[in-house]
């Protein structure tokens, strides 16, 4: 726990925290704490180098501007041709489908139940057929009341 506190004080001292300004922090003789301090310093140097913004020197400036000029002068890739081809293909497809639908005449009509034929072999009996008001196909046998059984 004391070591942890010392490590925090080392970090704060290296960060230049105000509460430690003017205070003398005794140098450590502990080997592990020394290693910790060295590692912290190394990290700080690395962070300072990474944070440094890249600069273009005068000797690099002409080449830098030349690259920009080339980028501006180069025409942007054009996709207008692709859109034209896609539009024409779509229109052609629609026209073909419409023509096929028009000339093939659509699906076969649905046909209702019907009586194709009806006949009898009995003397005195007649047969006719009709659709009743509900559309039910009906075969009607007209039989005399007697002489059948």
């Amino acid at each position, binding site marked *: 726990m004391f070591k942890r506190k010392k490590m925090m004080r080392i970090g704060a001292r290296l960060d230049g925290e105000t509460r430690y300004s003017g205070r003398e922090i005794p140098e450590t003789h502990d080997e592990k704490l020394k290693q910790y301090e060295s590692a912290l310093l190394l990290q700080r140097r690395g962070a300072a180098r990474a944070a440094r913004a890249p600069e273009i020197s005068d000797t690099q400036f002409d080449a830098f501007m030349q690259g920009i000029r080339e980028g501006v002068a180069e025409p942007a890739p054009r996709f207008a041709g692709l859109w034209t081809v896609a539009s024409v293909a779509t229109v052609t497809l629609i026209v073909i489908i419409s023509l096929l639908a028009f000339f093939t005449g659509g699906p076969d009509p649905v046909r209702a139940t019907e009586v194709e034929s009806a006949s009898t072999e*009995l003397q005195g009996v007649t047969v006719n057929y009709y659709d009743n008001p509900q559309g039910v196909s009906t075969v009607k046998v007209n039989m005399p009341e007697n002489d059948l059984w």
Partner: protein
Amino acid sequence: MVSVPGLTLIALLLGCSAPGAQPVSLHYWAVEATVEGREIPSFDAGAAPIKSLLEDLSYDTFRTVLEKGDHIEQDRDKSVTLNRLYAMNLRFTGTDDTDRARLVVTVTLAPRELGGLPRKVVETTLLLAPGGKARVCGLRCEKGGEIIIVLSRS
């Protein structure tokens, strides 16, 4: 000259292109219709599902004498006895170009004398659309009334 493999291929193609027709699914009823002086027409339990197909007839009592669901194979006869007097034969002969089943319905009357031949009362060819219904009416019974045959394709 056509080779043997060629002929075999043609035979195979013909065999594949003309599969046997599917049997037709039918439900049929024979209902005895009579006049018994009822104010409200009466339908027994068997006739209730086809009430709408019978209501326009001039009878007030409907009793089911036969009700059956069946698959009729093409070009095979299916004979059923309706009652003591009548028998019905069904023959499915195929479908037309709009999938209507061509069904030959023949109703025969029992012979007058023992050992005689049944008499053909009616032979009708129906074109039954899928879900279509048809009926044969006027098959007179001894005590008045008539037998009504209702055919319904599934």
